[in-house]
């Protein structure tokens, strides 16, 4: 502070005009919204930045080291940073198996949940009877913890006395070994997740639908458009911002499937058919202390989630909904 004043008094001898200009600018700046709101947004921004982007950055940095075990911390010297861990992941068959499962989970879960949620929202928006009650029924699973729903679905899928097989048995199908059969278990897990989150997608879409004025329905009706056509051409295109928020949250939930799987199987090692990158990452980190390798898997997981959601976000951005 003192130093800068010295500079000021010296420079005053040189050119007062330029100096006054500088002072005016500072004054204007200090009165600007940016500067005045600074204390309010900077603190939460920096905490969030450190927590989220700092965490991602630190994780990426660790993935470039050879950090493992308990005895030595990560070595960040430049000579030690390389992509060796990523080369290892490419050669690891478990990364491919779990990566494939994660990808299928992300795509199928997000798509089906959104389509189902939209369908339910349109149904409810048609003003059917007992609307509020039905809304609550669909939304309730969302309020339950994964710990509860995972155990609940484990019982539902029991090959002998689970409800699913009893129902299918009534129409002459099965019994299917939902959890024990490696080709069915991923589908079973995805179905349980869809059951839990389609209510969420429904509420998001319903809020969007209800913000659209009734005039548009009436106008479409006057023009002679069918109900189906009205929704397809007029209403659904206006739900872009709802669908962006639903999609982003659902992708996050798909990544959190770890919690569901851990609750279902009681351990980090779940059946191979439903093993995902998140469970593999936790095993590598906390069972085997391969910290750098686990960090590399975490980075791949992040990139995969971004890759799934990016084309959609880009499209919506171009449409001006983002």
């Amino acid at each position, binding site marked *: 502070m003192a130093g800068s004043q010295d500079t000021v008094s010296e420079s005053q001898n040189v050119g007062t005009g330029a100096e006054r200009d500088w002072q005016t600018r500072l004054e204007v700046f200090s009165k600007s919204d940016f500067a005045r709101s600074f204390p309010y947004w900077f603190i939460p921004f920096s905490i969030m930045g*450190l927590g989220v982007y700092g965490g991602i950055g630190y994780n990426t940095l660790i993935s470039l080291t050879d950090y493992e075990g308990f005895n030595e911390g990560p070595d960040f010297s430049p000579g030690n940073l390389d992509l060796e861990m990523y080369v290892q992941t490419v050669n690891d068959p478990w990364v491919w198996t779990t990566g494939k499962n994660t990808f299928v989970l992300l795509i199928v879960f997000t798509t089906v949940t959104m389509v189902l949620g939209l369908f339910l929202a349109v149904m409810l928006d048609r003003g059917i009877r007992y609307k509020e009650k039905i809304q609550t029924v669909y939304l309730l699973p969302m309020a339950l913890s994964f710990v509860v729903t995972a155990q609940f679905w484990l019982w539902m899928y029991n090959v002998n006395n689970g409800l699913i097989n009893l129902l299918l048995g009534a129409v002459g199908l099965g019994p299917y070994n939902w959890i024990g059969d490696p080709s069915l278990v991923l589908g079973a897990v995805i179905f349980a997740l869809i059951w839990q989150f389609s209510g969420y997608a429904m509420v998001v879409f319903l809020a969007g639908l209800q913000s659209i004025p009734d005039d548009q329905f009436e106008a479409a009706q006057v023009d002679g458009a069918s109900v189906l056509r009205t929704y397809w051409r007029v209403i659904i295109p206006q739900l872009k911002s709802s669908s962006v928020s639903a999609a982003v949250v659902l992708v996050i939930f798909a990544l*959190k499937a770890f919690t569901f799987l851990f609750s279902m199987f009681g*351990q980090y090692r779940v*059946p*191979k058919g439903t093993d995902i990158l998140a469970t593999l990452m936790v095993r590598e980190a906390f069972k085997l202390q391969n*910290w750098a390798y686990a960090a590399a898997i975490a980075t791949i997981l992040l990139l995969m989630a971004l890759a799934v959601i990016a084309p959609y976000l880009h499209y919506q951005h171009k449409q001006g909904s983002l």
Partner: protein
Amino acid sequence: MGSLGVGALVAGCSGGDGGDGGDGGDGGDGGDGGDGTDGTDGGSDGDGGMDGGDGGGTPTMTDNAMEALHGWTGGDGAAAVGRLVEMFEEQHSDVEHDIKPIGGDANENLNATVARRLANRNPPDAFASWPGKTMEQYGGRLMSIDGVWEEAGYTDSIHPKAREASRLNDAYRSIPLGSHRLNNLFYNVSVLEEAGVDPESLTSYDAFIDALDAVDQNTDAIPITMTTRGSWANLQYFVEFMLGTEGQEPYEAWLDGDGDREALVRALDRTKNVIENYSNNDKSSISFPEANDKLIAGDAAFFTMGNWAYGMYRNTDNFEFNENWGWVPFPGTEDMYVWHLDNFLFPRDGNAPQKARVFAEFLGTKDVQVEFNNLKGSIPLRTDVDGSRLTEFLNLNVEDLNNLEKFPPTLAHGLAATADELSACKDAIASNFMGPYDAEATADELMSVF
């Protein structure tokens, strides 16, 4: 209400992330310390020096509470550890403690918590784990408690096999609390009577298969109730059949890297035969207590599991040893005690090292071992315990522990394999031996582990 739920979930999620980020930062700080460069040997030397000092001089107690982590949250385990805490408070009222459970199946969350805290240089003062090869991963991070062992005379009064397994890098760094036996075949007495099977005849694989066939034909019960929800269970079943049909030598030869692939294939085929043809359909979605319930309910004849399963029988009313349920060694393993240990390990650089030593000494005392294990369903490792203080079933195991000569270490519970090796074995099982069952491919992968 719905939106509230969403908000709470999202908030919970981001809160967790923030916490993780913070932890990562701590790990970085720890790396700067000189500890890292000590390596395993340096670490143990340092510990030895520290120990000597403590023995000679006056021990200084810190003000910090002694923090000990364990994983016993369910029924018997919780009762046993509750009694242990009670006794510790009675005997050492001056030692402030924080003995707390980290829940989850098979120490899963406990191990993860310990791993995170050791990496972040914020170790607890003690934690429960498996000794033997599982302990090796902690090498360099544990303190020596040689002084405790010598002063308390545990070098004489604790079973020699347990002494050996409690050592790492030339020092005692853990203390055994109890041992479960793995090679058990529990049976429901009335189902076996109905099937016309004499349990004393179950001394070989062929006799066992005959018994399973008899149950299948003569009763409505499931011949053997199993859980295959986790790969550890299938691995454990395989080891039992391996020991029962091929014997201890081929098993240990395999663990030493000199295995006979054909022996593994034979054992895997036998395991497969029993799992596929004689067990319950819902094995892949039920846990071991649910599987054991079938035996208690009279819906199944046999159950093989570590003897922690015994705790469930004791807690069931009117379900008595030799009247309602019985026990024989797993067929073919009559001369073995398949060996498991629960130990407490003691990290270095804890906040209350002197109190941790008091705790270590306490864990080895006779009364604690008897009372804890009577509730837990495992057996004390003291060689001088009066058998009449233990329940009948536990006493039978103590006699076997003292009289048998073969102690093959358990694989699925970490005595026989390092964490990496055990994980690779479970990978092999998870890939090829959890339905469909491919003995050849499993054997190839298992052979490549050691």
